[in-house]
């Protein structure tokens, strides 16, 4: 994919078979059900790493040229979550990885949402 490694070089041999693409942390928390999933996201706040930690995710790929702060990178290195970054947009990142055989993450079924919004 030509992604830049921000931290976690030693874990690059890790096998990643599934991916989940989202910017909203609530979606990640509600949806991902297994370990070692690659999170593809454009949100760079430190909570992203905490969410990945809480959900036992394998690694994070930041898209659209977004880069997390140095403090966030350090925290990810401490807890052992490799961070990658690419300038490609999320659509292309998903497209490329999907065509290479990455599967969508298994997820919990949710009831249909038809409640009030905003």
């Amino acid at each position, binding site marked *: 994919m030509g992604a830049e490694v921000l931290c976690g070089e030693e874990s690059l041999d890790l096998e990643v078979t599934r991916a989940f693409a989202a910017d909203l942390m609530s979606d990640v928390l509600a949806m991902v059900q297994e370990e070692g999933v690659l999170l593809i996201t454009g949100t760079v706040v430190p909570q992203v790493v905490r969410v990945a930690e809480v959900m036992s995710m394998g690694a994070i790929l930041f898209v659209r040229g977004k880069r997390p702060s140095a403090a966030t990178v350090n925290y990810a290195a401490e807890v052992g979550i490799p961070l990658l970054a690419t300038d490609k947009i999320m659509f292309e990142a998903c497209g490329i990885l999907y*065509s290479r055989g990455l599967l969508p993450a298994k997820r919990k079924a949710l009831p249909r949402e038809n409640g009030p919004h905003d």
Partner: protein
Amino acid sequence: MKLAEVIERLGLEVLVPGDLERRVRWGFCSDLLSDVLAHAQEGDLWITHQRHLNVVAVAKLKGVAGVVCVRGLHPSQEVLAKARKEGVTVLASAEDAFEVAGKLYGLLSP
């Protein structure tokens, strides 16, 4: 590729039909409206988890080919009514954003 054909090939559900004959230029995945405003292009098919009223306004403003709501999450009737009024196509898929994007990319890439 025409939107109608994309809909058929990806098995998308049509919640609000806008202009189904228009051409889909590329895809854009984002739940952050500021990113969509900054980077999405006219004719992109916008794949998102967001389902609130602002989505319709942004979709209209950027001239996207349509909005795909993923994971079987449908916007409220109020949002769909606004989309109908503005002529914004709203589609839905039971699949993940990653999967829909992956398949669309496969369809649109040379």
